[in-house]
């Protein structure tokens, strides 16, 4: 439909983006996140039940007892997700590289990650008990509570070095970047060693294939894990630190800071991503790699904070749910508003037909029929609102959160949750967020309407041109 230089630039842009998005490590990262997404959704439900439902009819001890349930779910999901993600990314990378033994990569990834953990943790302890023994008999033992030390419970805190512990700081949201990096690196190293013929132990004929398979990965696995262990020992021995701590301060913190230094970084990424969808390539090719891992980390931390009853800091306001609940209404580009406009204002039969077909999936935020059928792809008038409407909503929702007019998002609701419900769920049942979502639908309809009119005129015009051309050339031309 577009022609000349514009077309070739857009094609080039689409081609380059697709190449980047299809790069094997980036694709594996996206696949990995998609695989563990259900446990985040599950955690979100548990957090909501714990913090919204239980307090409705329980108090004090009974509430705490009931909330143990939700906290248990949180411990196994939110607080453990980095370990799972690391293994799953290794598994996906192996599959994407067509490496035969994917499950071995899962094992290597998880082992490598835990190998990099600190072996001693300095941690706060609730209260301190000491015991001194001589031979068989206890000489002294005492619980050091605040009064013994001449302090009050509020002013005293104990810290101690403990061994034999793995911290949820490293296995939960804060460890996600570490998980990504180690999952990709460990698997890459392991596959490289596995493909080395000299390192494969061959037991000869007559050995059951499963036995042979487990032996053939032994040496590569041993070497990979040893390398990670040496690295871990060097970091501890020379610098007194560990990889998760380094990644947390050098990678995670700056990236999260960038995302939350205002809505700008997120807006830029989603502008490019949605523009890409206008060229027919799924927006997650871009956003799934550049924005989603970090924004997911933030919402997971928010879930954990909300579960613990703590306030959400301002640098956690920009998160995945701002996108999924408030800038993806009806799917990428917020096309639900275009469908509503079409039902109310359009007389164009083809548009109304496609709107009828698309409205049900659209309510659940699935909109490929709109994007390819309406169409939005290569349809310049509709590409404009498709890109700017989500940008406006990202900025506005972030702004409203900063103003305190709506609660920050604290729960990861599935992206397929219909509007109004998704706003309620993601903000921990804040009715103002649901009202804002309804207002968003009005704003979106107002913005889409003039572009829809232009698009229909252009389509009509093009149809006439094609008919003329057909008559002139005397043969049918494919649309």
């Amino acid at each position, binding site marked *: 439909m577009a022609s000349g230089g514009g077309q070739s630039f857009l094609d080039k842009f689409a081609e380059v983006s*697709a*190449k980047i*998005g*299809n790069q094997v490590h980036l694709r594996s990262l996206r*696949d990995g996140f*998609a*695989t563990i997404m259900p446990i985040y959704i599950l955690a979100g439900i548990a957090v909501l039940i714990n913090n919204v439902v239980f307090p409705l009819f329980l108090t004090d001890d009974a509430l705490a007892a009931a909330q143990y349930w939700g906290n248990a779910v949180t411990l196994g999901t939110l607080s453990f997700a980095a370990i799972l993600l690391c293994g799953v990314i290794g598994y*996906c990378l192996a*599959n*994407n590289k*067509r490496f035969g033994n994917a499950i071995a990569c899962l094992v290597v990834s998880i082992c490598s990650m835990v190998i990099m953990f600190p072996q001693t943790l300095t941690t706060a302890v609730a209260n301190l008990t000491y015991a001194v023994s001589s031979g068989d008999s206890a000489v002294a033992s005492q619980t050091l509570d605040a009064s013994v030390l001449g302090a009050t419970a509020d002013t005293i805190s104990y810290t101690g070095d403990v061994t034999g512990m793995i911290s949820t700081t490293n296995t939960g949201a804060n460890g996600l970047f570490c998980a990504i990096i180690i999952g990709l690196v460990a698997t890459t190293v392991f596959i490289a060693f596995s493909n080395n013929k000299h390192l494969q132990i061959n037991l000869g004929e007559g050995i059951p294939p499963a036995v042979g398979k487990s032996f053939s990965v032994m040496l590569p696995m041993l070497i990979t894990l040893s390398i990670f262990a040496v690295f871990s020992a060097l970091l501890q021995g020379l610098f007194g630190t560990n990889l998760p701590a380094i990644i947390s301060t050098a990678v995670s913190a700056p990236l999260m800071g960038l995302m939350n230094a205002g809505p700008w970084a997120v807006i830029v990424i989603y502008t490019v991503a949605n523009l890409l*969808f206008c060229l*027919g*390539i*799924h927006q*997650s*090719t871009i956003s799934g790699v550049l924005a989603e891992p970090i924004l997911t980390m933030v919402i997971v931390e928010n879930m954990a904070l909300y579960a613990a009853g703590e306030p959400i800091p301002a640098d956690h306001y920009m998160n995945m749910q701002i996108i999924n609940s408030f800038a993806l209404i009806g799917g990428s580009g917020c096309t639900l508003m275009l469908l509503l406009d079409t039902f109310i204002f359009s007389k164009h039969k083809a548009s109304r037909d*496609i709107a009828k*077909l698309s409205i049900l*999936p659209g309510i659940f935020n*699935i*909109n*490929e*029929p*709109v*994007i*390819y*059928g*309406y*169409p939005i*792809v290569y349809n310049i008038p509709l590409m404009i609102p498709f890109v700017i409407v989500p940008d406006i909503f990202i900025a506005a929702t972030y702004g409203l959160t900063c103003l305190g007019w709506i609660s920050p998002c604290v729960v990861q609701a599935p992206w*397929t949750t219909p509007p109004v419900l998704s706003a309620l769920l993601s903000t921990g049942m804040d009715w103002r967020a649901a009202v804002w979502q309804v207002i968003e639908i009005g704003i979106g309809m107002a913005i889409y309407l003039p572009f829809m009119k232009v698009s229909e005129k252009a389509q009509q015009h093009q149809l006439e041109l094609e008919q003329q051309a057909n008559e002139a050339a005397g043969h049918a031309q494919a*649309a």
Partner: protein
Amino acid sequence: MKKIMLVCNAGMSTSLLVQKMQAEAKNRGLDVTIEARPMAEAMENLDSADILLLGPQIGYAKGDFQKATDKPVEVIAMVDYGRMNAPKILDAALAEMN
């Protein structure tokens, strides 16, 4: 029995098309199974299909799929996909398999 696998980003929008294609195949009394899978899952289940049809939004992955299998891999045309034109897509797939 011929097996058609549709692949898209999350397996959501193609599952919609699958329903329509299954209905169409049933109407015609064809002996085919049609299923939808997300991209990552499809890679692991290449053997369970006689033809792969990719949604246009992941058309860029055609090369990777083609490298991984000797079965035909086709990208569904954008307009057919958008309009959920099941008869036409089914016809094209059947022609490709024969």
